[in-house]
């Protein structure tokens, strides 16, 4: 069996799955229950001067019948007295000495930082995570993302912490910034041992159409919250990659954002994370999801021959390039497997309206046909096709040529003028604009019985 254990900047954990600092780690009861279920570590709900929270704290984004593809909260840090949290941390560490307990911290003054780091160390934590990410409430008080957005302030606070910390220090970064590597570099300059990202994204998850107020609604009003859940994974992956690829950051990364199953976790790891943190999925489905996550990770590692997590950390990074370094000679075109096609024609309408008019319909069949010379290989049809492996993208170039935008620019073969002959779409066929009119089947007509006994009721002017 592969070894799932990690040593993350000196923090040891039986597996890379940690609960993120959030409601699931609000108490010793929850953390113990999670460890008992199989979680490797937990970042305790942020400690600081206890807050007072509002009622109505979470909002969700549903997609059709799928609940919580996105999630946001306006809850603040722990509202429990520090001593209660520390006592419970001590108890958890006694019961689970080999699991990772990390104290998330957020205070203001240098003295407060020193005090809370020392107190947490005394309680037996394995490390610290400095919460410089919370984008709601706390930032209005000069903490959380207000710190994460100011690299100089961030660096200074990290330095304060490092003055007394005897355990590894992780800096948690906010994504509410244009370049995530700047605060990451500041963390490194301040002496941090690791970074974790992303914290939540400033958001409004929805507006109540009757009350005209944003969710979650507090007495008829709302405020921006922090967005997380499956929907944010792509943003998180990109930021993890940015930090992992930066030549000067060179810190272990704890990946956070949209992790719900082993696949999500592996993606974070392949882009450079060496531990992962989960919150929304645990809030949605409970701690039991860890069973699928560890089993899936183990199975994947066995299939790939990875013995430890470190065999796969950052394995996808060499394949993430700048756009200008991609091979422009590579060419794929869509291929419809007629035996699998069920005739929904979503590919047709998607290509017609959303891409390059490279799919046509033929009389007597519902199976569309690819117009190969128009196909630019954009993937759209294969993405909308509801049947597995029905539309595949097949390589059509020889595979021997290689030319990048950068090389074209250097060689002076890149288009530079408005009417440039070298433009990619210069000789690509598009229909005449007026050909768009009069296509009755392309409209969703307003509910009229469209065709009865072969007679169409479409008005003449349509």
């Amino acid at each position, binding site marked *: 069996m592969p070894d799932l254990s990690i040593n993350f900047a000196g923090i040891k954990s039986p597996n890379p799955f940690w609960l993120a600092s959030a409601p699931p780690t609000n108490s010793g009861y929850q953390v113990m229950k999670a460890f008992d279920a199989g979680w490797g570590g937990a970042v305790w709900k942020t400690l600081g001067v206890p807050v007072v929270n509002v009622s109505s704290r979470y909002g969700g984004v549903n997609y*059709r019948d799928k609940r919580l593809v996105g999630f946001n909260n306006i809850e603040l840090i722990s509202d429990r007295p520090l001593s209660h949290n520390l006592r419970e941390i001590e108890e958890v560490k006694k019961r689970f000495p080999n699991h990772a307990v990390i104290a998330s911290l957020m205070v203001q003054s240098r003295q407060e930082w020193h005090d809370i780091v020392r107190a947490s160390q005394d309680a037996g934590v394995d490390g610290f995570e400095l919460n410089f990410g919370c984008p709601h409430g706390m930032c209005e008080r000069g903490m959380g993302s207000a710190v994460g957005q100011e690299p100089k302030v961030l660096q200074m606070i990290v330095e304060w912490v490092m003055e007394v910390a005897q355990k590894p220090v992780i800096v948690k970064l906010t994504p509410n910034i244009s370049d995530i590597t700047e605060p990451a570099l500041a963390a490194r300059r301040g002496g941090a041992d690791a970074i974790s990202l992303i914290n939540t994204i400033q958001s409004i998850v929805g507006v109540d159409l009757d009350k005209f107020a944003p969710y979650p609604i507090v007495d008829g009003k709302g405020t921006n919250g922090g967005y997380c859940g499956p929907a944010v994974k792509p943003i998180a992956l990109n930021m993890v990659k940015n930090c992992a690829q930066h030549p000067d950051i060179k810190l272990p990364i704890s990946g956070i954002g949209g992790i719900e199953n082993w696949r999500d976790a592996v993606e974070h790891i392949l882009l450079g994370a060496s531990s992962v943190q989960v919150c929304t999925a645990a809030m949605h489905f409970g701690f039991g999801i860890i069973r699928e996550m560890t089993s899936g990770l183990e199975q994947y590692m066995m299939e790939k021959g990875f013995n430890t997590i470190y065999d796969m950390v950052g394995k996808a990074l060499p394949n993430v390039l700048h756009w200008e370094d991609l091979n422009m000679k590579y060419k794929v075109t869509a291929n419809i497997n007629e035996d699998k096609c*069920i005739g929904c024609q979503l590919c047709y*309408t998607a290509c017609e309206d959303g891409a390059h008019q490279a799919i046509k319909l033929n009389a007597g069949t519902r199976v569309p046909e690819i117009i190969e010379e128009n196909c630019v290989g954009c993937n759209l049809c294969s993405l909308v096709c509801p049947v597995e492996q029905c539309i595949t993208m097949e390589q059509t170039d020889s595979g021997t040529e290689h030319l990048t935008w950068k090389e074209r620019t250097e060689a002076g073969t890149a288009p530079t003028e408005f009417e440039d002959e070298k433009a990619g779409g210069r000789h690509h066929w598009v229909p005449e604009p007026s050909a768009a009119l009069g296509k009755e089947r392309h409209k969703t007509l307003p*509910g*009229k019985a*469209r*065709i*009865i006994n072969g*007679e169409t009721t479409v008005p003449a002017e349509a």
Partner: protein
Amino acid sequence: MAEFSTPTTEQQFAENFAQLKPVMNRTEALYESSRCLFCFDAPCIKACPSGIDIPQFIRQINSGNDTGAARTIYEANYFGNACGKVCPTEVLCEGACVYNLQEVKPIEIGRLQSFATTKVIKSGEKLFGPGADNGKKVAVIGAGPAGISAACELRSLGYGVDIYEAKAQPSGLTVYGVAPYKITNEETLAEMAYLQAQFGYNVHFNSAISSREELEKLEDKYDAIFLGIGLGKTNELGLPGEDKINCTGAVEFIAELRQHHHEVAVGRKVIVLGGGNTAMDAASESSRLGAENVILAYRRAKEEMGAYEFEYDLAKGVGVKGLFNVAPVEITGNGYVTGVKFIRTETKDGKVSEIAGSEFVEPCDMVIKATGQAKQTEFLGLIPGLKLDGKGRIIANAHTGQTSNPKYFASGDAWNGGAEVVNAAAEAKLTARGIHAYLSK
């Protein structure tokens, strides 16, 4: 033991005849509508005789616009709720759903349709109304799916509409002929009440039009007459003993059943003659009424039955046994039915022939003849110049429904020879527009 115990209360009847397509709740509708792919030029629309924009109403349900969904449905088909429940969706919209080709369960379009329509019927939300009065009047004979649909469309076009109905309730076979497990009387009549409240046509119940004099009065009083008269009684077979007690027609049996539920008695052993959908219904219903043995006797082979496969499956599922390649020659008995004398048949080159000397008697205490309904040729003969085809169906223009007597228009079973509620509803909408075109000249 019989498959079902004989129902003696309304509740037991409702259990034995539990709805095949119960109304969805909001959660189920959300889940089911979420599965719709929103096909381009969707096959389900093409498969619907009334051309309902199905992906549109499903998308409306999915986005929480249930009222808009109901509007989409009713704009295409006034029997929106009835059709959702009684249509053979397996061979229409749901049969055309592309999911079938992936061996995935098709979208439950019928139930989604009823979900949306039931909601507005219950709330009574006003979605439609009569058009501005154009001063012209149309008489509608028959308050079935054709007549009611024509009345709604004509009212929206501004006509005054009076419906003359022989029976005491509207909706025709929807309340008198459809199997009770497909739709309840309450559901049917609620939709009729909803439509009447929306469009405001008049219905004269228990007002059969059956004489030349009555027709003349209508011809004098109205600008056009719409024939939505449907079909007549069950065809006589012309067999000896057909008049015996407990030998009944399926149409008559089902009409009784719909009106009197568990008070209708069924034999202990029932033989249903026929191989069409009505035969399947009568057989299923006999079983659900507590008959111990129900035999479905058909003169040709199983594969040749006119009934939809799912209807036969439904009958088999409640214990009905098939008896094929047998033709009835006599109903035996002494006052009451005691059996049916059959002769075995064989099909060669598409022709059925009897096998000499193969007669046998299958004992039973009830016979239900599901051998088709007669055309109302006698009544139709009272209309001057009205032409019928060789099968007794009214001949009318395919696009306008106008008959060979220009004042008369037709739709539904009397025109198409016997089809589904949805066909009548779709045809009547078209014919109403045909009347409008004719009277607007």
